């Protein structure tokens, strides 16, 4: 029960449904009861009515039956008709039936009384009267029949009829009464219905009222409260009613209260928040003000930076000095909004660039750059601004007074030195302090730019120097990075790589640069492997590699050194060294050793062998002599071999000294022929002298060796004898000697090797021709040392001709046929300082021949005096002079210290090999004795010509002036 109540209490809708449902149940029950009552009324009335009407019908039938029976009885008796007598008894039955039915329907006392009376009458009438009357009548006793009717018959009939009538009347009264009762009861029912309707209406009104009271009022209250809240009026949460209710309203009210509470709470927190916000806003306002200030500063800075950036962007990125300077001036002027300006570097050249200036102005500025206004810059190292009246030249067509503002800016280097100065002029307006400050910032940029440029120039110079150094090195140098790209290469290397220029190899990849080298090398694959292993695998331990370039006939040794920077391998330096000479020398050396060993062992074999035989065997005296002779000859041969060998060695290594003098070749040759004649009987010797100029400058003994070798060869290689002709003749400026034999001749293929050491011609003759195999090599060396040449022509079986040529020595003034001589040369005056009279005479003759005027002097002091007096065009100076206190060196020093004489060219002519010293002291040329006299003429002439060419004033001392 309690549950049920709470169930309804919780939901307003449920309460409403309950109310409405109750109302309907009451309404339906009421209405049903009323209508059932109504229906009962009608039914009971109908039933009563039917009963009464049945009773009336039965009463009627009874009455009829009796009345018929009366009439029949009268008829029968009157008319004696038998049918009537039958009908009487039929009617008796009908009356009896009617009475039975009526008895069944009888409900009231009246009915029962009537039925009793009727039955009594029927029993009297039909049982007594009628049968007596009929018997009487049939008996013809009419009197008796009459007596019976008069003695009561008629009276009882009449009484019964009256009773009948009364009953019938009572039945009618009964019907009327029922009807009246019905009407009365219906009236009551109607009244009850109306009452019911009113009652229902009242109930409905009550429900409506309840609902209104239950929903409307609280809702209104809540709405009112909500309105109050909306209108922001003060509402306490305790004001919220109906919160105790459990239904929706209660919930609504509670929710509302909660809402209110939460709103209030929120409002409080919002209020707090709002206060906070307000505080923050204040703070923000302050900050905004600060930010605005900062923004302004930023914008100013931005403008500055923009100009700065503009300036830097405008600066030429070039490394060309002039271009950079020009871009500096131009951009500075743009940034400054200056009308003209100039930059000058404080270097020796005063490199500058100007903008809007006349060349005259520029020149003026440059001229007074160290003593003009800007002197202040050098002292203070700070910029300054000048305001001055515009000069007339600057004013153009303006007449009124104008002002121009000049700003002077120093560009300071890292060491705070004034590196450059900038001057700019503005006609438009003054330069503010901020602007000038900003320009100072820009000058720092300029300083960086200038330093960069300078650095680049230095680097470039250094690079060039390095490249020059590399190019002067004889080895091919090649720096290759770790990827095999060519980085640095010198000229020699470029040649090796078959490139025209170094530039072609700039950054060339391995494939690009290596191909040229590998293609021409004999060991392409191995060389390629070698290079690759070092470059790409960092195989640093590799031994130097040697390869040949067959086309260039070169042998190259390459070695590699890794290059490290900060411990990291940067690449590899390859050095390709031309070792052709070393290689050849090496090869020759080993061949030489092998050959020498063979050549020495052969005579040694004989000497040892025969000695052994003589020591161990009993030999006949003839054989002993033969063996001893052989031993002696072989030992001699061994000696000759060793001598020749040593000679060759000495000559080849340049250690052979030649005691050169002017010798007559004819006498040398005559001596040789005399000596050689002894060795042969089958040869005829002839000497043909076709010129008188048979003097040569040479070593007599060595020249004799040359001819000995040639003539002994001629003898040896013409084993069948014949003429051996020596011919001396002049050819051009050479003195030639032919040595001709009529012997075996030399096969053509042997000719190129003839002068090679130990080379021997294979002879078809098959006879071994003794010798060391060094004779011609020695000839060649000696002739070479005498500035001579040796050549050979030969025909097999007919003989060979060896021709030796020496420079022609002209002893006498017999050179009328000399080529045309320059006029200047004819007048040029030469003083010869020489203590060797012969040599002096020779030189004098030579120089006079060449058209110089010559004076001889023997001593140092004398020489200086003469030179001072004569001021010659050239001096030929010997160093070792007779008078030991004044040497040639002293003369040279003396002359060079004297301003008047210092310009006179000096040719040192000395046996001392001290060229460096001589040149250092100021000599112009140094001839080492012995030299060809003609060389002296040539040197002097060359010197005088050079002097003229160099633009020095050459005053010929002509005959008249002398």
């Amino acid at each position, binding site marked *: 029960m309690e549950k049920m109540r709470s169930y309804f209490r919780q939901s307003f809708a449920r309460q409403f449904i309950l109310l409405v449902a109750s109302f309907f149940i009451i309404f339906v029950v009421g209405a049903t009861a009323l209508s059932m009552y109504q229906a009962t009324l009608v039914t009971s009335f109908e039933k009563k009515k039917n009963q009464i009407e049945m009773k009336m019908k039965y009463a009627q039938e009874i009455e009829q039956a009796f009345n018929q029976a009366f009439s029949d009885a009268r008829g029968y008796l009157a008319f004696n008709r038998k049918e009537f007598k039958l009908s009487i008894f039929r009617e008796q039955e009908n009356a009896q039936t009617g009475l039975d039915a009526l008895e069944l329907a009888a409900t009231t006392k009246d009915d029962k009384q009537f039925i009793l009376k009727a039955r009594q009458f029927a029993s009297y009438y039909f049982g007594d009267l009628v049968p007596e009357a009929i018997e009487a009548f049939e008996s013809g006793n009419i009197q008796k029949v009459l007596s019976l009717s008069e003695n009561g018959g008629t009276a009882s009939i009449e009484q019964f009829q009256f009773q009948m009538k009364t009953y019938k009347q009572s039945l009618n009264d009964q019907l009327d009464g029922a009807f009246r009762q019905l009407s009365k009861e219906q009236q009551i029912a109607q009244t009850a219905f109306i009452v019911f309707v009113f009652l229902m209406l009242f109930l409905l009104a009550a429900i409506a009222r309840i609902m209104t009271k239950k929903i409307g009022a609280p809702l209104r209250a809540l709405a009112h409260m909500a309105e109050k809240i909306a209108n922001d009026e003060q509402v306490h949460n305790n004001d919220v009613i109906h919160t105790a209710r459990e239904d929706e309203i209660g919930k609504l009210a509670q929710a509302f209260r909660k809402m209110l509470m939460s709103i209030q709470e929120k409002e409080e927190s919002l209020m707090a928040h709002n206060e906070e916000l307000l505080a923050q806003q204040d703070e923000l306002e302050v900050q905004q003000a600060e930010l605005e200030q900062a923004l302004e500063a930023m914008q100013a800075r931005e403008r500055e930076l923009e100009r700065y950036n503009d300036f830097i962007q405008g600066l030429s990125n070039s490394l060309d000095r002039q271009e950079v300077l020009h871009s500096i001036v131009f951009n500075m002027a743009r940034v400054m909004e200056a009308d003209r300006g100039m930059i000058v570097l404080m270097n020796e050249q005063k490199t500058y660039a100007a903008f809007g200036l006349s060349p005259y102005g520029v020149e003026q500025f440059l001229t007074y750059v160290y003593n003009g206004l800007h002197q202040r810059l050098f002292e203070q190292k700070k910029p300054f601004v000048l305001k001055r009246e515009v000069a007339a030249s600057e004013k153009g067509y303006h007449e009124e007074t104008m002002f121009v503002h000049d700003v002077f800016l120093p560009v300071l280097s890292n060491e705070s030195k004034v590196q450059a100065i900038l001057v700019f002029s503005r006609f438009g307006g003054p330069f503010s302090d901020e602007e000038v400050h900003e320009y100072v910032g820009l000058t720092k940029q300029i300083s960086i730019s200038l330093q960069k440029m300078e650095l680049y120039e230095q680097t470039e110079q250094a690079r060039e120097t390095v490249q020059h150094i590399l190019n002067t090195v004889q080895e091919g140098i090649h720096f290759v990075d770790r990827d095999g790209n060519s980085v640095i290469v010198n000229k020699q290397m470029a040649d090796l790589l078959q490139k025209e220029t170094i530039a072609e190899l700039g950054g060339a990849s391995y494939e690009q640069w290596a191909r040229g080298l590998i293609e021409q090398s004999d060991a392409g694959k191995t060389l390629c492997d070698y290079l690759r292993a070092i470059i790409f695998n960092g195989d640093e331990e590799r031994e130097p590699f040697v390869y040949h370039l067959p086309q260039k006939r070169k042998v190259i040794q390459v070695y590699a050194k890794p290059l490290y920077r900060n411990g990291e391998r940067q690449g590899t330096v390859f050095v390709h060294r031309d070792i052709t000479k070393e290689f050849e020398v090496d090869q020759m050396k080993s061949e030489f050793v*092998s050959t020498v*060993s*063979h050549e020495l*062992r*052969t*005579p*040694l*074999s*004989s*000497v*040892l*062998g*025969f000695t*052994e*035989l003589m020591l*161990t*065997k009993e030999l006949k005296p003839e*054989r002993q002599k033969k063996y001893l002779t*052989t031993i002696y*000859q*072989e030992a001699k041969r061994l000696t000759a071999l060793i001598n020749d060998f040593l000679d060759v060695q000495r000559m080849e290594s340049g250690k052979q000294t030649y005691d050169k003098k002017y010798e007559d070749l004819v006498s040398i040759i005559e001596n040789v022929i005399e000596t050689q004649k002894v060795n042969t009987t089958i040869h005829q010797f002839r000497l043909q002298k076709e010129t008188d100029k048979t003097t040569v400058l040479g070593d007599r003994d060595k020249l004799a060796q040359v001819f000995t070798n040639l003539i002994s060869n001629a003898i040896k290689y013409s084993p069948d004898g014949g003429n051996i002709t020596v011919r001396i003749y002049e050819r051009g400026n050479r003195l030639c000697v032919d040595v001709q034999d009529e012997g075996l001749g030399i096969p053509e293929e042997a000719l190129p090797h003839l002068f090679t050491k130990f080379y*021997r011609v*294979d*002879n078809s003759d*098959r*006879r*071994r021709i003794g010798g060391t195999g060094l004779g011609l090599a020695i000839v060649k060396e000696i002739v070479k040392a005498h500035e001579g040449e040796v050549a050979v022509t030969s025909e097999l079986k007919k003989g060979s001709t060896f021709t030796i040529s020496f420079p022609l020595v002209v002893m006498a003034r017999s050179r009328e046929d000399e080529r045309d001589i320059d006029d200047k040369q004819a007048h040029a005056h030469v003083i010869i300082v020489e203590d060797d009279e012969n040599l002096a005479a020779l030189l004098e003759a030579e120089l006079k021949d060449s058209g110089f005027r010559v004076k001889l002097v023997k001593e140092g002091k004398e020489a200086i005096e003469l030179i001072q007096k004569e001021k010659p065009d050239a001096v030929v100076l010997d160093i070792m002079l007779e008078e030991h206190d004044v040497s040639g060196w002293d003369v040279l020093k003396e002359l060079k210290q004297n301003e008047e004489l210092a310009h006179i060219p000096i040719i040192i002519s000395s046996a001392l090999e001290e060229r460096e010293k001589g040149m250092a002291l100021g000599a112009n040329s140094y001839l080492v004795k012995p030299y060809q006299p003609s060389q002296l003429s040539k040197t002097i002439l060359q010197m005088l010509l050079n002097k003229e060419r160099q633009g020095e004033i050459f005053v010929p001392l002509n005959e008249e002036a002398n």
Partner: protein
Amino acid sequence: MAKILLAEDEEVLRMLVVDTLEDEGHDIDEACDGEEAINMIKQNDYDLILLDYMMPIYTGLEVIQQVRQMPDKKHVKIMMLSAKSQQADQQRVLDAGADYFMAKPYSPLELVQRIEAILHGEDA
């Protein structure tokens, strides 16, 4: 008595070897150069051939090569006499087909001893 060829361009050395071997009773032929030696080898059957290394026309080495090409001379005994006494030279000679090698300067007695040993089938 054996038939021996000596090819040597130096006359004195020929004399030395010929004298020594003739004293031992051998029959010696002489050749002055490689070509002569080859011709003589073709024409004769030698028990032993002594070859100098450095000879005109054909060197001793070339002679050996040519002789070894000859069908009937594949097994003829050859001794090389050479001043080129280095190991490599010696090896080259033996590789070319020489059976024996003697370096100059050699002792004639030693030479005789070796030749006797070779001729008596001892490997000297």
